[in-house]
């Protein structure tokens, strides 16, 4: 109520904005010009930047401190991780196609692309599980050294984010199958997409910082 007065956004007289019956649907007019749901996701992603900023900084600080454990770059299989990174990046493309499909009202394509995106995400997670298991076999566990702790915390948190993203995608798919995602509610899919793209962008940084830079 206090921030109502942007003098540049004056509703014209007779503007239907003021109608009291517009308390439903996704057509709320907000003073920011962006829906509350989408703004909430952006704010959440802002706080996620802080989380991953802290984790990446910690990793940079500790990556040389391998103590008596193996050195990180002796264990990395850059080729393998590149492929799984590529799979994750492609899933951003299929996510865009899913959003585009629902915006056109094409429910069949929406469902297909959501399923493909979730599948690609699962492939990435499978790769991470395999990789973690390999590292464990080579003698690098969570508490082996400060470097291994920082590595598993950073990549593990990212993996958890991808997993939650997959759950969101499958939930969206189920909602769509039950007819709850109408074309007017395309923004719901777009918001899930925002999260998914964010997780991808974070992986580009993590992959570069952790795996590529020696």
């Amino acid at each position, binding site marked *: *109520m*206090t921030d*109502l*007065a942007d*003098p540049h956004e*004056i*509703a014209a*007289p*007779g*503007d*239907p*904005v*003021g*109608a*009291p*019956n*517009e*308390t*439903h*649907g996704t057509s709320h007019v907000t003073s920011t010009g962006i829906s509350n749901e989408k703004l909430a996701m952006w704010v959440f992603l802002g706080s996620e930047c*802080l989380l991953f900023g*802290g984790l990446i*900084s*910690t990793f940079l*600080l500790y990556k040389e401190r391998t103590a008596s454990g193996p050195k990180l770059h002796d264990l990395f299989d850059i080729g393998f991780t590149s492929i799984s990174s590529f799979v994750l990046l492609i899933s951003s493309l299929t996510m865009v196609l899913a959003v585009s499909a629902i915006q056109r009202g094409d429910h069949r394509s929406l469902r297909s692309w959501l399923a493909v995106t979730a599948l690609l995400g699962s492939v990435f997670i499978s790769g991470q599980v395999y990789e973690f298991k390999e590292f464990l076999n080579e003698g690098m566990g969570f508490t082996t050294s*400060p470097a291994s702790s920082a590595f598993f915390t950073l990549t593990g948190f990212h993996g958890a984010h991808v997993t939650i993203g997959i759950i969101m995608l499958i*939930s969206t798919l189920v*909602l769509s199958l039950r007819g*709850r995602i109408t074309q007017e509610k395309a923004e719901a899919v777009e918001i899930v997409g925002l999260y998914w793209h964010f997780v991808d962008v974070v992986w580009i940084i993590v992959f570069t910082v952790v795996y590529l830079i020696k």
Partner: protein
Amino acid sequence: MQTPLLWEHLFWIFGHPEVYIMILPAFGVISEIIPVFARKPIFGYPFMVFSGIAIGFMGWGVWAHHMFASGIGPISVAAFSMSTMFIAVPTGVKILNWLATMWGGKLKFSAPMLYSIGLVTMFTIGGLSGVTHAVSPSDTQQTDTYYIVAHFHYVLFGGALFGFIGGWYFWWPKVFGYALNDFVGKVNFWFLLIGFNLTFGPMHILGLQGMPRRTYTYRDGYGFNLWNLVSTVGAFLIAASFLVFFWNIFNSRRKAKASALVMSGDPWDGRSLEWMLPSPTPAHNFDVIPTISSLDDFWHRKYGEDEKGRLVRIAATEDVSQKGDATDVHLPSPSYWPLVLAFGLPWVAYGLIYNLLFCIVGVILIVGAMYGWIMEPSTEPGGDHDDHEPEPSDASGDAVATEGAALVD
């Protein structure tokens, strides 16, 4: 690169922005209160807004001023020293604008206004001692002394809490439908102001004398006795002021119930839109969402200017207020799921500290509540609202109960 240093960084990169989360809402509260009791618009509105945003943004870049004594090195110290002094600029802009709002105004010293002025003055003292922390050589002497305790109580108690109590007195009638007694509120304020300054003012001196914080006792003969005694007296005064506050709530409520008078919608001759509604605010808020054409729109519906620029009333408050009796406003169905979700969060927090099993309970509650919240219909099933015609709200924004807005469901 030692582990405790990393922990300090991670703690303060969260912890410093967190203090701005506490103070910025209080700044907003008194920016609402001061114009009402000065009967003037807020001075420099855009500067107010942008300095608030500037504080929010710069607040992320000053955290290491908590760590000047931890050995982060001269370059870091210099950089954070600079950024910390720099953040005083938008804060100073705000203080100047509050003063300029009061300057030449028709001041009315009701309880909410007293607390707001309390914030401006007490926060300024805390801000000044804050700048002495930003000067890193003097900060190394102040670190871990009572001087720090004095500083953060002047900004967060004298600042944030004064603003919040002012806000409670200001919006109490709007929220609960009865006003807190203003005279008792003033007594409450003076007890609190004097008690606060007696408690935390001497800590500046104690700190500069070298009394360490986080130590509950001190030895005789260091010269700490007198000022600690004064602090103790002040602390009891603060306690007394809160008893006055709680008594005020209890007594005002009892009297309001006995008198059966209807609370005015606009008891302070307010400026912002909530005051054009009855008190307490009806569940649907506005009968018709008003069309806004200026800052302080409600004020401009009540007052205009004559040819000499003097304030004249152009409409009675009742004529520009809304009745709050609309029956055709469709509200989303109420939901218990947000409460379930909130109930789940402390389980996770507790579990992370004591026993991870509690986290499982919390996660089940949170995730279950999320799905429940998403899956439940926000409007009644079958409520197809296509039969609504958009209602026009006329140019002056008066509440016109339009005929024929169909009742849904």
